[in-house]
């Protein structure tokens, strides 16, 4: 076998510590008979599957809920990136990125990053300590399916998604018998990506393993406008590189699915990851070389076991999840003649144990019931060994959920959901959701959707207990939202158009922000009221023009997120102003053309100006000007008898623009990535 040797080398280069020995054995023994491949053609087949599912746009279970599912073509295209990049470029979610490979948080509809709930295979993975998720740490490679639930729709999974929720999941491919796929990426700034996926199974049991290793020196050049050297009486800005910003990330996802009969389905997933990165100093830093050096280490383990039981119209799901997160942050300085000593050395351990039981019953075609019970136990221990500050605490959350869905007439679906929570010893107020769908036209499916909902988000453990400033008296944030929209689908032969427009209004009270008080340190307070209004649209067109397959998809959002906090504070200019870092206009578009074995994609993404000052002061130093970003990719596939090879060349920041997404954080200019993908598989 000509490829066996290559394969072995590729696997070896991937880092032998990661790959259990039995995998090697499996590759070597099994490689001889691999055939077929996961190809561009397959992704189209998948795409069509998605569309078939999407055709059922009028279901009582989702009445009034806005859900968007990220196209599988997009997931495939962004396989080597982080979820933050995919969300920014292909969904209406705004990502605040602190730089390439750096912290990236998400905001739906003008809300805060902690208002976006994130679920992985059903379990919530928001940090109980911080309340939010760093999307730069989630590789797209471990995801099979991404569904966004906008605004109140997130109540179906949990409370707290005042902006919405992002659900990432894995699913079994029951047609698989043996499969192997390897991607090697080489990019600018010493970026190397390695991904290996292998799976084995039959119609009863499926096992799949993914391992990955990504790293980058991330040392891109830029002109440093914050430093000036005098040269012949002139101020000169030095050519600089992005220093102390290298990152690496490696991890694995293991999945086992077992369906002993049609009535039972059991699955177990484990995702482990280690991430390490430098946090670059401010670019205006002119202190000694070995000082002010920050590093962050993120270690994650998430596991979930699920058992599902089906019988005619009944379904029981039992799920048990565990999430572990260790975050180490250090700031070190070299002081005269010593090794660098830490000025900050903080370690936090976060653990969550999550139990879930649900029961669904379909009484008839027109009436269904869902009830669910969640019990989560969180443990957080955080400590800085230099200042010796920190806290250690536990929290228990209990949640009861009841939903009644009914088809009132042929054209009307109704969805009533109620959630009741207990935190610690406290009852939260009831969270109700009422959604309605009205089918205007069946021929060209056109559905009007609307909902009204209340929601709460409880303060994070840092909000309550951080030293100094943690405020145990904080109240939950309270959201009230209404939305309405139109969803449409048109599918004549060889052509497919889907579109949706949604208007939303969300009123959030007791919004928590960290702010310094007269006491001199920062503390969180329930001081804001934010009224967020706007619209979201998306459209997707695909079809075939003679030999050319085309896919065009895009989103546009208009967001007005205005602070209406207590205007009593004299001189406060933030009243009535747009929240910082929330663009009014944002949009993106992806064009993808495929001709025979060739594919070309163009990705565009833009935001209007963003303010960094709460009074919307636009002094030049504080202003983030409108953002327009373009990426281009070219791919070619070679199909052989027993294996397939795909080469893809990507150009990021096509027009080599100088830009910022955070003040004074340089971003990379035009840069490149070449990736090779080898696929071997067997399908029944």
């Amino acid at each position, binding site marked *: 076998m000509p490829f066996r040797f290559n394969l072995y080398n590729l696997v070896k280069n991937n880092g032998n510590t990661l790959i259990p020995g039995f995998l090697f054995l499996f590759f070597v023994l099994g490689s001889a008979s691999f055939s077929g491949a996961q190809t561009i053609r397959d992704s189209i087949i998948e795409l069509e599957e998605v569309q078939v599912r999407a055709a059922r746009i009028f279901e009582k279970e989702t009445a009034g809920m806005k859900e968007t599912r990220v196209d599988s073509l997009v997931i495939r295209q962004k396989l080597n990136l982080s979820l933050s990049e995919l969300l920014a470029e292909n969904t209406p979610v705004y990502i605040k990125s602190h730089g390439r490979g750096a912290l990236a948080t998400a905001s739906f509809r003008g809300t805060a990053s902690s208002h976006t709930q994130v679920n992985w295979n059903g379990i919530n993975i928001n940090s109980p300590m911080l309340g939010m998720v760093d999307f730069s740490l989630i590789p797209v490679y471990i995801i099979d399916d991404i569904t966004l639930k906008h605004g109140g729709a997130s109540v179906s999974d949990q409370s707290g998604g005042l902006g919405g929720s992002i659900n990432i999941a894995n699913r079994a491919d029951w047609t698989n018998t043996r499969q192997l796929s390897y991607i090697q990426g080489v990019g600018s700034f010493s970026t190397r990506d390695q991904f290996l996926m292998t799976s084995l199974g039959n119609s009863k049991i499926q096992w799949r393993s993914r391992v990955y290793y990504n790293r980058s020196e991330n040392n891109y050049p830029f002109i440093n*406008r914050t430093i000036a050297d005098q040269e012949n009486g002139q101020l000169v800005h030095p050519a600089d590189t992005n220093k102390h910003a290298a990152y690496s990330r490696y991890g694995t996802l293991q999945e086992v699915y077992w369906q002993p009969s049609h009535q039972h389905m059991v699955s177990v997933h484990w995702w482990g990851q280690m991430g390490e990165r430098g946090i670059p100093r401010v670019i*205006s830093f002119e202190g000694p070389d070995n000082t002010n050096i920050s590093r962050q280490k993120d270690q994650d383990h998430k596991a979930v076991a699920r058992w599902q039981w089906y019988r005619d119209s009944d379904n029981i799901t039992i799920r048990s999840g565990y999430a572990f997160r260790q975050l180490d942050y250090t700031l070190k300085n070299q002081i005269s003649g010593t090794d660098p000593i830490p000025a900050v050395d903080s370690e936090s351990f976060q653990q969550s144990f999550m139990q879930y039981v649900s029961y669904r019953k379909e009484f008839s075609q027109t009436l269904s019931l869902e009830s669910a019970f969640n019990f989560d136990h969180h443990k957080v221990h955080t400590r800085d060994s230099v200042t010796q500050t920190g806290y250690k605490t536990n929290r228990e959350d209990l949640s009861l959920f009841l939903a009644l869905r009914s088809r009132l007439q042929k054209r009307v679906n109704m969805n009533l959901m109620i959630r009741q929570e207990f935190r610690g010893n406290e009852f939260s107020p009831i969270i109700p959701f009422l959604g309605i769908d009205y089918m205007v036209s069946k021929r060209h499916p056109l559905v009007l959707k609307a909902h009204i909902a209340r929601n709460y988000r409880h303060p994070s453990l840092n909000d309550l207990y951080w030293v100094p400033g943690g405020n145990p008296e904080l109240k939950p944030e309270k959201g009230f939202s209404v939305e309405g929209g139109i969803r449409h689908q048109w599918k004549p032969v060889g052509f497919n158009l889907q579109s949706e427009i949604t208007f939303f209004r969300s009123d959030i009270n007791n919004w928590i922000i960290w*702010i310094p008080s*007269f006491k001199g340190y920062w503390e969180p307070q329930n001081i804001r009221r934010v009224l967020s209004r706007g619209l979201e649209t998306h459209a997707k067109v695909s079809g075939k023009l003679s030999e050319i397959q085309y896919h065009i998809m895009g989103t546009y959002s208009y967001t007005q997120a205005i602070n209406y906090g207590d205007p009593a504070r004299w001189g406060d200019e*933030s009243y009535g102003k747009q929240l910082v870092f929330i663009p009014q206009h944002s949009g993106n578009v992806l064009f993808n053309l495929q001709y025979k074995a060739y594919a070309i994609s163009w990705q565009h993404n833009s935001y209007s100006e963003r303010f960094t*000052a709460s009074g919307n002061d636009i002094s030049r*130093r504080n202003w983030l000007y*409108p953002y327009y970003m373009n990426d281009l990719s070219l791919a070619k596939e070679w199909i052989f008898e027993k294996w397939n090879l795909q080469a893809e060349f990507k150009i990021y920041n096509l027009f080599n623009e100088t830009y910022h997404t955070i003040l004074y954080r340089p971003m990379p200019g035009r840069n490149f990535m070449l990736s090779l993908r080898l696929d071997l598989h067997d399908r029944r």
Partner: protein
Amino acid sequence: MLILHACMDDDALWETRPVPVSPSPEGVFIINEGNFMYGNASLSYYDPVEKIILNDVFFNTNGLPLGDVALSMTIRGNLGYIVVNNSGRIYVIDLETFELKGKITGLTSPRYMHFVSDEKAYVTDLYAKAIAVVNPQTYEITGSIDVNNHESEFYQHSTEQMVQVGKYVFTNCWSFDNNILVIDTDTDQWVETIEVPVQPQSMVVDANDKIWVITDGGFPGSPFGHEAPTLVRIDAHERKTEKMYQFDLNDHAMSLAINKTKDTLYFINRHVYRHPVGSDDFPEIFIQSTSPADSYGGFRALGVDPASSEIYVGDAIDFVQPGIVYRFTPQGQPIDTLRVRISPGNFAFKVTTP
């Protein structure tokens, strides 16, 4: 397709813009800290005669941002030395034109600058465990004074403000500390330590060579201890605490300043307090803050004009919008309100030589 493409114009951000020439010889610099890691510190200039406020004078003049967290400014002759803490540098500007004249780089986390002579100045530091000795004329670092406290389990000593009595410089150690260090300027050595209550935040020296110190008492939950803030008087020669006023545990005292004749203290404890140095009474509120106690922002920076004894008080509001500076007469009557930039934290006064 490519019609959508529009160039992001980064260059336009950096153009210099003419700054009007201030007609009066007097002037007040307001050092706006900006936000940590945002690189948006800035310099404002106020003409107290014409009542004109000019914001962003450094950026507009030089097409260069000041840096990350501008903490203090020291004036010597016709030059201003702006300490930019998290940029590890000191920018030197011309006081009349705001033009950049030079920079002192290679500082770890500089806080304040104090002139010992025209050729020698000290720069305190939060993290270096040393005070840098610099030559303000050549902009070079010429030495350092080791202040590493090997005995403490905390990161000590960080050094902050400086006052000088005779040949001795006194500097307060604020972060997880409770000491005043005494430095001999002849030998550039740390020679003595004076213990004070928890976290000495600011200091001044009065007409009688008495050093006054405000301690903020730390914060609830601090492993170094949390106690009531105090105002302490130390004799510069005896190096002993002579007098102490203790506030409430929930108070937060800060920003000690002194007037022209060095006989009246001013400081912030939510409100502005005034205290004559010879008085034995407990310090009293002088200017009431209108900002409610349960709200955000409020008075956080205080400066007293050494020429007129007028009082300037900074309020950062929510710390992410342009802050406000209030100007009062020495009697506490409001004169003017200025909208400056993010987090006004310090003042420097251009003193006209008679």
